[in-house]
């Protein structure tokens, strides 16, 4: 195990390029404002679309009359779900996968019902966005308002109001399996059960059992750039979409399904993305803009407002989790059990399964039982958010472990280290752990100077937690290498750059080819210009797209060995590539630098272009952790973070600055989730705080410097040992802050967010109980 500090001390790392900090290729464009984001697109003749959204959280649509809007000067067309072929041609089938295009179409434009306040109902396109917005007021929708099912409690009570008449509960024992239809109607879409051993037996062997209930609220990713796209339907039937998304091929597939046209007729062009965090894996506007462009014969641009982003796009789930852990007096866990309910929002598909598979998996457990429920309610359909489903369950498990450590009078990291899973131990899924630095991260936390530093004042305490993400298979990535005559290289991918992946992929290519990072120019291109590539999510791009780019670079080396062999009248096997040079095995005096040989490609058969696709990815799990020192104002309940340190097993840092960026960014989003952020709904399901003013994400003044400790425990699945960086850092801040505040006020916190008001209530409760 090596850490950043060790490497900085060493003169030279293991690698020539990886682990250094070159300036990112897209950096200057981004800091000077030259980079083009979704809303920067403006084609000649562009029209502007706006969406009419439901004022009710739950209502049946009796009729929609768009005639007055259509008659308004400036208005060019109106669209409703009747314009989506999939809604006309296909019945709803809840057994389909989570990315169910029929349900996505209904989410993009409501069909017979609206299921949340802000649900899109119709869209208008006009010559200006203001005209389009005014015309929305002229659309007459006749609603039959229905009772609101505002959360999981109401959704799961006896004889609940139903969101979907035909939804029945599915029972499954594996995340990958759609499971069996139980035929039970209700708002529970699925029940996932994971089992190891026999928990009853495990709990009977325990000296101490702790069982607690935890609640978290609906939170949004809070990306700075609202959704924005432009669609142009050309007369010959080809559709081009420019959009800010995490996955151009996903958008292509969804639009093709919703509009019932072949994917071959659609080109999706990625714009720069101003934050996604999982939330831009799903699109909303593209099929609507496409329909409006087809109707008008002109390009149609649609940009959401912040209010629309909060009310009409997917946040992460609110949750209820009961956690029970049994332990011996020496701290050894004997059994653990989770009952988890995740709100999916309007349609099935919460990230419950992600939480269920990872929640207990960092620990060695012979007996474990996890029951997870995916429950629909009248809130926006949830979307992925950074380690989807993990922060919620980790808040429960790691808070419970901290309280157990207090009960056992043990150091909280000692208790974790005592129970940490090793390579080969079974995760809760039943699958044995691969080579992953669980113990290494835990020991790094315990050994860090922050862990034992003096707190330096009253009303202060320290909280610690770890966050595990078990990460499954990658979806596949393509890359093309073009060797240019001056010895530089272009690497072309379909991976939208959310986090510095252009430079991280380019550095891997440079490492293979013996070049500098600056010699490799990374390009992110459209769906017609690169092989199929899954979306930028799941902490997979540096790993999966990196592997594809490495494979393409190795093919390029082989082709260039052929060219050297041709020049030297040898066979390919007689030429080796050593330290960036092509060398003849027969006569070591014969050698070309990469640049020299690149200059001779045209004369030896033409340029070298190599493509590769990696489908064998699967970045694998990793552990992150946080230490926080907080100070609580006992009079106001305000929590100030005095010191923060983030830990992550990254395998091998490609570009340490962007690993640190991910660690700091994830930590800050976790801080927001823990302390301030929540959707605040009125009783009838209207979000009251749909602005950045009232949805209180942390500002720079709310954050301390977040120190980063990179742990490098090499991943055998990657040629250079890389793991993912994007998701894990958001997980542990929730429980680490809960643990810190609980220790500071000597009263346990079970509900997020830990607002000043809730802290005051906890303090009052503590004083009332005389503890």
């Amino acid at each position, binding site marked *: 195990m090596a850490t950043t500090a060790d490497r900085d001390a060493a003169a030279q790392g293991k690698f020539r390029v990886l682990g250094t900090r070159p300036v990112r290729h897209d950096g200057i464009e981004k800091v000077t404002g030259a980079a083009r984001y979704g809303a920067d697109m403006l084609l000649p003749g562009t029209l502007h679309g706006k969406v009419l959204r439901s004022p009710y959280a739950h209502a049946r649509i009796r009729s929609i009359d768009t005639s007055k809007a259509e008659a308004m000067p400036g208005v060019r067309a109106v669209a409703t779900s009747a314009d989506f072929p999939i809604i006309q041609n296909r019945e709803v089938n809840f057994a389909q996968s989570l990315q169910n295009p029929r349900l996505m179409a209904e989410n993009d434009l409501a069909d017979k019902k609206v299921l949340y306040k802000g649900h899109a109902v119709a869209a208008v396109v006009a010559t200006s966005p*203001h005209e389009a*917005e*005014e015309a929305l007021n002229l659309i007459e929708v006749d609603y039959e308002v229905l009772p609101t099912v505002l959360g999981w409690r109401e959704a799961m009570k006896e004889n609940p109001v139903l969101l979907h008449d035909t939804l029945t509960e599915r029972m499954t024992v594996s995340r990958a399996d759609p499971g069996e239809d139980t035929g039970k109607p209700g708002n529970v879409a699925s029940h996932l059960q994971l089992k190891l051993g026999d928990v009853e037996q495990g709990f009977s062997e325990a000296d101490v059992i702790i069982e607690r209930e935890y609640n978290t609220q609906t939170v949004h990713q809070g990306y700075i750039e609202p959704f924005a796209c432009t669609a142009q339907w050309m007369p010959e039937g080809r559709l081009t979409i420019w959009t800010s998304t995490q996955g151009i091929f996903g958008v292509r597939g969804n639009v093709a399904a919703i509009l019932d046209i072949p994917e071959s007729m659609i080109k999706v062009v990625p714009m720069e993305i101003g934050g996604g965090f999982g939330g831009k894996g799903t699109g909303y506007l593209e099929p609507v803009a496409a329909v409006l462009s087809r109707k008008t014969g002109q390009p149609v641009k649609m940009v959401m407002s912040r*209010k629309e982003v909060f009310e009409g796009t997917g946040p992460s789930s609110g949750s209820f989790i009961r956690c029970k852990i049994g332990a011996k007096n020496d701290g050894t866990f004997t059994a653990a059990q989770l009952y988890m309910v995740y709100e999916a929002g309007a349609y099935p598909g919460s990230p419950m399964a992600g939480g269920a598979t990872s929640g207990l998996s960092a620990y060695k457990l012979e007996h474990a039982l996890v029951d997870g429920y995916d429950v629909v309610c009248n809130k926006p359909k949830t979307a992925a958010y950074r380690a989807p489903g993990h922060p919620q369950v980790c808040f429960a498990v790691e808070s419970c472990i901290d309280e157990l450590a207090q009960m056992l009078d043990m150091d909280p990291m000692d208790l974790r280290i005592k129970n940490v899973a090793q390579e080969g131990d079974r995760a809760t899924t039943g699958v044995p752990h691969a080579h992953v630095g669980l113990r290494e991260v835990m020991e790094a936390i315990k050994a860090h100077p922050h862990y034992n530093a003096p707190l330096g004042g009253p009303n202060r305490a320290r909280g610690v937690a770890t966050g595990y993400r078990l990460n499954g298979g990658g979806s596949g990535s393509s890359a093309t290498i073009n060797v240019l005559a001056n010895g530089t290289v272009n690497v072309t991918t379909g991976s939208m750059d959310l986090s510095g992946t252009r430079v991280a992929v380019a550095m891997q290519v440079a490492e293979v080819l013996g070049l500098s990072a600056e010699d490799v120019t990374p390009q992110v291109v459209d769906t017609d210009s690169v092989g199929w590539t899954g979306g930028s999510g799941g902490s997979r791009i540096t790993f999966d797209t990196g592997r594809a780019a490495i494979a393409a670079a190795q093919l390029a080396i082989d082709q260039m060995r052929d060219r050297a062999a041709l020049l030297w009248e040898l066979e390919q096997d007689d030429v080796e590539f050593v330290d960036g040079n092509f060398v003849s095995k027969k006569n070591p005096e014969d050698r070309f630098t990469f640049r020299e040989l690149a200059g001779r490609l045209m004369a030896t058969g033409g340029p070298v272009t190599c493509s590769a696709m990696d489908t064998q990815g699967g970045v694998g799990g990793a552990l992150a952790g946080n230490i926080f020192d907080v100070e609580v104002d006992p*009079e*106001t*309940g*305000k929590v100030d973070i005095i010191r923060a340190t983030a830990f992550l097993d990254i395998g091998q840092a490609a570009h340490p600055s962007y690993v640190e960026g991910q660690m700091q960014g994830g930590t800050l989003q976790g801080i927001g989730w823990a*302390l*301030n952020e929540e959707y*605040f709904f009125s009783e009838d399901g209207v979000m*009251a*705080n749909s602005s950045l*003013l*009232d949805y*209180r994400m*942390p*500002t720079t*003044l*709310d954050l301390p410097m977040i120190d980063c400790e990179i742990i490098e425990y090499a991943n055998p699945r990657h040629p250079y040992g890389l793991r993912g960086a994007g998701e894990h850092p958001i997980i542990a801040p929730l429980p680490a802050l809960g643990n810190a505040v609980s220790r500071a006020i000597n009263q346990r916190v079970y509900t997020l967010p830990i*607002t*000043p*008001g809730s802290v*005051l209530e906890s303090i009052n409760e503590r004083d009332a109980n005389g503890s």
Partner: protein
Amino acid sequence: MRDFEYVAPTTIDEAVRLMAESGNRAKALAGGTDVIVQLRGGRFDIDRLVDMKKIPELNEMSYSEADGLTVGAAVPCHRIYEDATVQEQYPGLVDAAFLIGGIQIQGRATLGGNLCNSSPSGDTIPALMALGGTCDIAGPNGRRSLPVEDFCTGPGRNVLQDGEILVGLNFPSPKANSGAAFLRFIPRNEMDIAIANAAASVVLDDSKENIVSARIAVGAVAPTPMMATAAADGLAGKAASEESIEAAGEAAKAVASPINDMRGTVTQRVHLVGVLTKRALRTAISRAKGE
């Protein structure tokens, strides 16, 4: 958003005429940090937006010992808190002007606009009240003046009639041995709306040990910012001690009649009025002592 007329008069008379012509279909624009956001958010629908920033009198800021401090209604916050005289004479006003939004907002936002927006949680209003500010109003029937505490009449409502505009605010010169402070409580450390706020000003006697008089104002806990008169009057003649401060903080809670909403609960707000009043008083007393 519908299209509307934008006008930028250069005299008070012209501004009054333009405002009067459109009646309640006109809105005054100073920094625009509230009115533009509200327009875009569909809070109201107008025919005319009257920009006050080109009227010289509304951009003036002047101080004399005899007349005190006059701040034009369109003077942005940064000019107030960067002014050496204001920093020296009115630190409580600096507290308030520095709290509105972030740096960019402070480049545009005005005390006048904050007052005319008349939000119950208006960031500067309790400070203006505690400092004994008065409003200079121009309208079709001429000029009038009234204390800031009589200006707001409800959430988003105030005494301005159709055609009337706020010209500026005046604050009397600080008395000897006086001090003021303003505090708000927000869950974040900037860019937030107060759950509660409080301002206090005190005048001490020459020994600096006893309170001669005090003014206390609290916000975000009633339909308008409120003077906590009984709490302040109770301090007159008392020692400038922790005991007096404690009593005033408890007494200030009596004027709070808050609501439960996404920003805070009734219990929390009433409690915070007490905490913030005490903290504001401590700072005000400390400033009065020249500490």
